[in-house]
Structure formats: C-alpha cells, structure tokens
C-alpha cells in the first residue's frame, strides 16, 4: 500500500502476526480479524490473556468485537474523522513520544511556504487543478527542495512520482538532493510538520468525532486514553487493519491516519507495535511484490509510462533517489531486464528499455471493464479470480465479459465469470441472450495448492514454500504450467516473425526445466531466477546489496533477492518453532527484505542505540562488537553506528544517518507528512464516502475531490447523496464483508459441502428498529437496492447492527456478506451487484465498505421486472433531483460554509461542481 510505503518506506505490514502477543493495546479497525483471520487472531488472544486492551472499532458488532475488551461502533466511512481525532487528542495534549518524534519522523521538517492546508481552502489542499481534477504537488514539498521529477520536467516527458510511478505498495520516493532538509528540532516553527499537523487536526475534537462517527464522546476518549497509556518507552500499541480501511475512496488516507498516530506514539519498529496489514488472499502480498498489477514491475519498480521516460537513463534518473536504498534503482532494474531477456538485454540496447510496453495513468481492472463495455478489449484471461461476483458492480463486469471476443477462465470449479453467458442475472432478466453473445470461452481446470510446488507470500511478507503432494488429475494444471506452455507455444509460433513488435517476445528468456509426465515447469528454477544470480559464475546472490547495474547479475525481484541464497530454497525452511531461539523464528521460511520480520527495527532502540526499555528491547547497538544485534535481522546496515553522520556528498544508503531508522526513505525518517507519492494530499482529511447520506461537517468539499468516478459510464450510475433530493430513495448506509465460513467471492467455499452448510444462504443484517420501521421480518426476505441493481437476502434482525445518530436523525446501517453467486452448492444474490465503481485515486480500489441503498420487505422482482424495478427507483430519485435543480429547496438545514476557494465553487451547496453529478440512467 502506498500509505505504508510513503509513510515508512515499504508497502508491507510493518510487523508480523506473532509479535501482536507483545502489544499492550491492540486497536483493530477496518478489520474483522477473528472472523477473517481466525488463526492469526490467536496472537491477539495471547495479548488479551496477558492483560492487553483489545479495542475493536467497527460499524458492526462482530465475532472480533465479541472478543474485544472494548467495542466502539462507528458510522461506516467515517474512519478518518475517528483517527484524526486520536491524532488531535495526542497533539493538543502534548502526549506524543517526544524523543521518537523528534529524531525518527519528519515532524521537525519545515514545509514550503506555498503549501496551503484543507483548513485554509475549505477541503482542498494547495495545487488543486479543477480542470484536470488533479493536484500538482510542488507546493507540498519540503522547504527549499524541489520535487523529484517536477512539473517543469514533465513537459519534457517526465511525470512526478505520484501514486502510479511510485507503485502500488510503493516506496516513499526521493527527495532531489542529499542535503538534510530545513528543520526545527524544537518543532515550534509554524511551518514545521508537527505544527502543520496540529493545525490540520485542531477541529477534530472529541465532540466532532462523536458527531461525525456517531459514537459517544466517552467511548472515543476512552480509546485515546487507552492508546496513549499503552504507548511510550515501556509500552507499545499495535494497529490492525484490513480491507475495511482500503475499500473506500479515501482508503489510502485512512491507513495514513493510523501511520500518523503510530509515529506520534512511537510505535513503529518496536515489538508489540506497528501496523499489521491483514491481507485476504494466500499471496496477495506476493502478487503486489511480484505484481500482477499494471503499474509496477517486480519489486515496485514503476512500469514505464507513455508520457515519460524517453530512454533508460531518464527512466532511471526519474526513479532513483539520491539518498536511501532507492539510490541503487539502476541495479534493480537492469538485473530484472537480465532476468527477463538474458543476453538479449545489454548496455548497448539500453537493456531493451525502449521496447517495453508503456502504461497510462490508469489501466487498472475497473478501467479495463470500462474498455470492455466499449468493446475495446477483445481478449481476457482470468486465473483464480471471479470478477462476476467479487468485483464491485458485478453487472458491469458480466456485461463487459459478454462483449469480449474470447475469454479464458482458469479455476478449480466453474465460477460465475465462466458461466455468465447462460446463468447470470442478466440472462434471467433477458438483458443477455446466449445466442447473441459473441464471446468464445475456454474454461481450463486449475490445480490446487496440493498439486503443485510454489511459494505464497503471507500477510507479514513471509515467503512460505508449499510442496506438491499429489499429481493434478486429467486436464487440471497449475498456472505455472499454463503460462509457461502458453509462452512456449507463442514463441514457437512467432519464431520466424520479422515483425518489430515480436522482438520482445522473441527476446524473452523462457527456458525452465520441466518434470513429470505433464511437463510441469520446475517452480524452484523460477524462484532461483527471482532470487538472483551472478550471471557468469551462476552464484546465487545473498541479497540486493549484491546486485550490479552493469548487467552482470540477474534478479527477478530485487526485494526477494536472497530467498535462494547459497543455493538453498530459503522459503522452504521448516524448522519447528520449538527448536528456535526466539519467537521471531527466523529459520521458518524467509521474509522480505533480508529475512527481517519486524521492519524499521532500528527504531526499537533510542537514538544512541540503546533499547527504549528493557521490556521492549528488540534490536540494539552492541558497542563492544561494533554492530547491531538483537532478536531479528537488523533493518539497518549492521555496522553503521548510531553516531554516524553522513558526509555532505553521500549517496544512497551512505546518506542515511545512524539515528535515522527508515532506510528506504530519502531522509531516513518516517513521514508524518507526505510531500510526494500520494494523489490526494500530504495529510489525511475527513471526506464523506462517494455515496453517503450526509454532507461533510468540516468542508463544503463533501467527498474526496480526487476520487475516480465513471461519469460517462451508463453501467455505473450513482445514488443521490447527502441533502440532494432523491437521496431519500437510498437512505441507508450499506457495508459489505466476509464471514469466517466463506472465502471472498465464494468460488473456493460455496463448492465445499462442509463450508456450504455452515453459512448456507445470502442474508442481510439489520437492527430491530430498522426492521420495525420498514416491516422486515426476522427470517423473512428483504430486497436491497441501489442505482445499479437490486438483490434479495434473508433477513437477520440483530442488535449487532447499530444505528448511528447524525444530524439529529438516526441512520441505519445494513450489513451484507458478499460470498454468494449463481453457482455452487449454495446460491444467492451477489452483494457486489449493488456496489458502484468509484475508486480511491491512489490504488484504484472500490468503495464497497460504505455506500447507500434502500431496503424493502419481500423478495426481489424476477425476470425483466428486475431491471425495470431498479430503473423506476432511479427515475424516482432523478426526478426529485431535477425538480430541485429547477426549484431550489426550501430547507435550510444545511449549514455548510459557503466560502469558495478561488471562486471555483457554485453557490448551491447541494451541487458540487467537480462532481458534476451525472443524471441517473
């Protein structure tokens, strides 16, 4: 995640699950850990049994809440207000960890005097370009420093290293020169980061939090007090989050909010502290590290962009940070090209850089669906994913698939993304007819984890090898087999091509040994390429410091370098934990980078290198030995003393001082304030969700101005919001989630009898008051609808869904698990059919955790009546909206600031100009 990447330097969880046992307080927010990561939750329970406070902040009372020492309900989508309130509590009461903040974070750094905060500009930061709907980030920069890849250079083909270029999960990006930034160690300068933060958050009072989040002042203050009491030299607190934070149009900034709190409290890089990002799939961390993502190459190297990077040198220059470990960017990139193209990539041809494909700003999955709907995408390969159920606005996805020329689906069961042409809701409604769908479909059965060798990277950056147990049956094959043989066939077919466009595929190094009757590629051979070798000698590299920029080493993913060091598959190490010295268990599998389990662990010692306290010792400077030592592999150069001061012209890691633990950052510090790398601001700000029944209490800017919307896409209409007429057609907040008993879109669990029976049917969770108001009956049926679609679900009336009180009215939240679809042993409507495709601008993730809906008793209409029903409601909402535009509303309930920065705002507070709400279809 760029939130963790920009704050700390690496996009992964800063800690590991077992270390949660050392926490004195654990705040679980945006995660339902007990339900979705039950086995990892044992470490939270260990902490609780040792007396730790476990706080669960969540709209719903879940199985996690049931285990917590404190549950605080809040309104879905108001997380930044809550977290900002904690930051404000810490700042206003001077409760931050002074020494940690001063030395290890960028709190003392002075910011450009052109920077203007959202508090100055009514919800916008400086640099907003209303035409482009984007920020230019120059004014966010450290005082006296230029941004790396500045706007001036952009005209020559450069683009500032914002979200895209710095990668999903990306790094902090560079600062242009190695000079230490201007700073005020006393942290009193009005433009120093600490003071900016103080001002930025000043209005996030407990009362504001209570009013915005719908929680009580007492609950909120209790959370603050508990966190603060359990942080400091002798105590540490951890944050745990999952997609409850990411799946918002402000997802990245929500996680950033937690990063700010943890920096202020001094909880990063220390045992029992950190931010534990809980990923939902076996290798979701791995699939960003070695990405199947459009915008990055392995190891978070940016994909070349159409608007930038004329040649290799400029690409390297734009991405190399003069200071910190990104100073070796050329070595990382060149070694990757050697892994990809072998001897065909060399210094004479710029390592084939010019032939690489280029991306646009957004070529993400949702963008691709738009292209499909427009008939621009012809062929699609789906391997182990089920967009027809698992992606927001399932109908748009299914319609998209129906407009392809060809589609390959690889899975263990026939999922909805393969069967949409004959059993989707659109076939039932008559919107699709099999006879009219041109898509040629290949369904290829896949192998399971027990039928192949390979490694998963788990949620704590740990690469764990799984060995094949049995041969896959009949046509079942691994993805390794499929892609290897597909590539082999394509290369074979194009072997004689003289066409320039086939140059790269012909140059591809694509030789892997195979075994067994089916010619399965050797997964370890692939891992060896990923880990890296010295080309001439074939020697296995022990880590990324050994990578060369002259083409003499190859490495498929620099951050994984060393996972096959000494010719040993480090990821397959399985020494039982009881035979290991510490709970870190560093001889079990292999963590990136360099087998470090707790990142930035130099921060577990004070600036002089001594543990902050005996109770919280982890890594420290052994002056006698002249090296860092402790329970884990030090995340610091082993022999760099705490007293090290970089010389003036120092480059790369040599420019990082001995008391700066964040070695991936250009300045060696964690970033409370992010001068570059994010699309929507250097600081998190409270915005309402894209669809919300409320206006923004802070600003007339209601929602994230930079969020991505599909204004011209008929398939993705939006509900009226806040005080807009027509919003009352969709008056409730809806949030989607998973249950312990099922996995994501259900393909892996609806097909399993023992799991199907545990949660056999789609249901909605509603509070008794809502049930009474609407006439819903426990155990009966409800129809839930949005502008996109309507679904039906069994009704579960429960106290666990809590209404919140906002603006003097009660707002109900409706809970929807999203596991069901048309196929499997158990079937049901898909919650994602209701969701829209407005996205977070940094990572293009959809907002399925907070949007609006309506609900009625009874089952949904069948057949053609379903789209008619949805359209009628949309029409109803639209007519109210249009009537209101013709005739301004009488109500004066809204009291938002009419101020309009730069005169860019219209007077009618109901209509946000930058949103230009598209009429419902």
């Amino acid at each position, binding site marked *: 995640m760029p939130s963790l990447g920009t704050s700390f330097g690496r996009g992964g969880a800063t800690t590991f699950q077992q270390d949660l046992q050392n926490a004195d307080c654990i705040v679980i927010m945006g995660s339902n850990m007990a339900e979705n990561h039950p086995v990892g939750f044992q470490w939270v329970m260990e902490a609780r049994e040792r007396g730790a406070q476990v706080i669960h902040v969540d709209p719903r009372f879940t199985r996690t809440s049931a285990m917590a020492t404190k549950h605080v309900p809040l309104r879905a989508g108001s997380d930044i207000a809550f977290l900002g309130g904690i930051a404000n509590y810490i700042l206003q009461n001077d409760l931050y960890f002074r020494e940690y903040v001063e030395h290890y974070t960028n709190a003392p750094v002075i910011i450009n005097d052109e920077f203007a905060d959202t508090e100055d500009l009514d919800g916008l930061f400086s640099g907003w370009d209303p035409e482009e709907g984007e920020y230019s980030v120059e004014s966010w920069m450290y005082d006296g420093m230029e941004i790396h890849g500045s706007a001036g250079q952009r005209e020559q083909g450069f683009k500032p290293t914002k979200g895209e270029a710095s990668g999903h999960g990306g790094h902090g990006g560079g600062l242009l020169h190695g000079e230490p930034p201007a700073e005020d160690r006393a942290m009193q300068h009005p433009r120093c980061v600490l003071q900016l933060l103080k001002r930025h958050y000043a209005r996030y009072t407990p009362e504001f939090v209570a009013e915005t989040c719908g929680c009580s002042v007492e609950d909120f203050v209790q959370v603050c007090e508990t966190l603060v009491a359990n942080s400091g030299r002798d105590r540490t607190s951890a944050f745990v989050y999952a997609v409850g934070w990411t799946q918002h149009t402000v997802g990245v900034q929500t996680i950033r909010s937690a990063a700010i709190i943890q920096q202020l409290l001094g909880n990063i890089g220390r045992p029992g502290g950190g931010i534990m990002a809980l990923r939902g799939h076996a290798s979701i961390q791995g699939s960003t590290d070695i990405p199947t993502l459009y915008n990055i190459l392995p190891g978070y190297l940016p994909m070349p962009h159409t608007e930038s990077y004329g040649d290799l040198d400029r690409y390297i220059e734009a991405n190399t940070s003069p200071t910190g470990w990104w100073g070796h960017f050329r070595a990382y990139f060149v070694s990757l090209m050697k892994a990809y193209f072998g001897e065909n990539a060399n210094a004479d041809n710029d390592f084939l850089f*010019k032939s690489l*494909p280029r991306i646009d700003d957004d070529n993400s999955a949702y963008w691709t669906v738009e292209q499909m709907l427009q008939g621009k995408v012809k062929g699609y390969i789906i391997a182990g994913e089920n*967009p027809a159920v698992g992606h927001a606005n399932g109908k748009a996805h299914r319609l998209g698939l129906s407009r392809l*020329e*060809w589609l390959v689906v690889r899975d263990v069961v026939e999922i909805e993304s393969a069967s949409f042409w004959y059993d989707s809701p659109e076939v039932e409604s008559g919107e699709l007819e099999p006879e009219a769908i041109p898509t040629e479909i290949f369904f290829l059965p896949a192998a399971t984890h027990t039928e192949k060798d390979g490694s998963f990277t788990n949620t704590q950056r740990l690469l764990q090898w799984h060995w*094949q147990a049995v041969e896959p049956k009949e046509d079942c094959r691994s993805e390794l087999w499929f892609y290897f043989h597909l590539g082999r066939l394509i290369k074979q077919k194009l072997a004689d091509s003289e066409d320039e466009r086939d140059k790269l595929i012909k140059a591809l190094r694509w030789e892997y040994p195979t075994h067994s009757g089916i010619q399965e590629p050797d997964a370890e051979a692939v891992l060896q390429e990923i880990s890296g070798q010295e080309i001439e000698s074939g020697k296995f590299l022990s880590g990324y410091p050994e990578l060369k920029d002259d083409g003499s080493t190859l490495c498929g993913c620099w951050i994984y370098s060393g996972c096959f060091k000494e010719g040993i598959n480090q990821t397959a190490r399985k020494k039982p934990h009881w035979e290991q010295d510490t709970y870190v268990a560093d001889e079990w599998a292999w963590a990136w980078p360099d087998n470090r389990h707790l990142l930035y662990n130099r921060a577990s010692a004070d600036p002089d290198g001594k543990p902050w306290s005996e109770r919280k010792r982890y890594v420290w400077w052994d002056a006698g030995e002249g090296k860092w030592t402790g329970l884990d592999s030090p995340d610091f150069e082993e022999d760099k003393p705490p007293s090290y001061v970089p010389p003036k012209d120092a480059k790369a890691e040599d420019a990082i001082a001995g008391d700066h633990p964040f070695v991936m950052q250009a300045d060696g510090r964690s970033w409370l304030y992010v001068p570059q790398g994010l699309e929507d601001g250097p600081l998190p700000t409270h915005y309402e969700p894209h669809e919300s029944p409320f206006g923004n209490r802070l600003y007339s800017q209601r929602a994230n101005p930079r969020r991505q919307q599909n204004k011209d896409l008929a398939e993705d209409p939006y509900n009226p919001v806040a005080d807009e007429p027509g919003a009352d057609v969709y008056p409730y907040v809806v949030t989607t989630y998973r249950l312990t008993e099922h996995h994501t879109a259900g393909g892996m669990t609806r097909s399993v009898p023992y799991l199907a029976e545990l949660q056999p049917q789609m249901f909605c969770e509603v509070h008794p008051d809502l049930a009474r108001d609407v006439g819903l009956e426990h155990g009966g049926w409800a129809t839930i609808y949005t502008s996109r679609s309507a679904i039906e679900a069994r009704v579960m009336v429960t106290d666990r869904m809590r209404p919140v009180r906002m603006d003097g009215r009660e707002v109900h939240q409706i809970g929807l698990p999203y596991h069901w679809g048309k196929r499997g042993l158990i079937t049901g409507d898909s919650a994602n059919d209701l969701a829209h495709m407005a996205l977070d601008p940094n990572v293009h993730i959809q907002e399925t955790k907070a949007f609006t809906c309506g609900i009625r008793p009874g089952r949904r209409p069948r057949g053609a009546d379903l789209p008619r029903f949805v359209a009628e409601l949309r029409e109803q909402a639209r007519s109210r909206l249009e009537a209101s535009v013709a005739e301004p509303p009488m109500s004066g309930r809204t009291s938002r600031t009419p101020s309009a920065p730069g005169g860019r705002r219209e007077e009618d507070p109901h209509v946000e100009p930058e949103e230009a709400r598209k009429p419902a279809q």
Partner: protein
Amino acid sequence: MSLSKLLESWPAVRQLREGDPLGLGRAVQSPRSRTLVPRIDEAEHVVQSVCPFCAVGCGQLVYVSDGAITHIEGDPASPISRGRLCPKGQASKSYADSPLREYKVKYRRPYGTSWEELSLGDAMEMIADRIIRTRADSWEWKTEDGNPANRTMAIGNLGGATLDNEENYLIKKLMTALGVVQVENQARI
C-alpha cells in the same frame, strides 16, 4: 474351533473373565476397536504445505496414500499457526475434492448455447493463436499523442492473489514481453 476358544469368545465369559461384568468396557471392545489405527499413521508420506485461503499463512500437513490425499490438518511446526486451522483451512481436502470440481476443459463457441468438449492441447493452441491474432490486430506503437506505447490494449489478464509467486512472476514476465499492460489481480479489489 476348540471348545475353550468358543467359550472364551462368548461375551458373557469375556465379561466375567475380563473384570467387566456389566459389559461396558474391555469385554465388548470390538475387533475393529482393538486394532484401530489413525489413517495419518498409515500415510505413505506427509507433505508440508501452506493453506490456500487467507494470508495468515497457516502451515498444513498433507497426508498421502496411493497417490491420493487422505487428510489435511495443521502443521504444529509453524510459528504462525502452531498447528491450528480455521474452518476453511480445515476443509482444504474437501476443497480439493469438491463435488463441483472440474477436471476437463470446457469450450463455448461464439453464440453457442452449450459447453463442448475440447482437448487441453487444442485449447492451448487456440488460445495462443487468439493472443497472437488479437495482439497483431490491436498493436499500438504510439499513443494518440504520439508517445511511445509498444503495447496492445485489447488483451487483459486478471488474477494472482491466490497464485504462487512463481506463477505471478511468469504471468508478468510473459505479458510484459507480449506488450499486454492490463495485468491485474485481486490486490486491487
């Protein structure tokens, strides 16, 4: 059978002789109960694996006999999971053996109304041909603005969060060399 053996096998005699006059314990232990062996002790080999569901990364032990999985349970050696598994992880064998699992390639021709059979080899050839054709038809050297593109925007690849690192590596490597940039996975979702 000798008379004494016959007598010994009589339950009543067993009950008295084995100090179990009411026939509640040892005397009524059946032959099967007496010789019961857990099937994990009879497995030909045990493979250390990792759970395929969420990202906690629990260790699994996969027990195999006669080329088939006979049981999957937690691997106590794992420092993360310590032998424990959630219901999904615990159902891994049933997942691999799902009654809905597909074992054969299925093919649906354009405008077709039913699945058809197709050999895996033919399917691979056909898919390779379609990639080559679509790519050739849609190749972009330049963007509309004249910037370098070197790509096809008519092909996409989705999936990866459930796959192995080695598989993701090959996907990205192959697609990049083919000029396919729309490579995405669930991490985005």
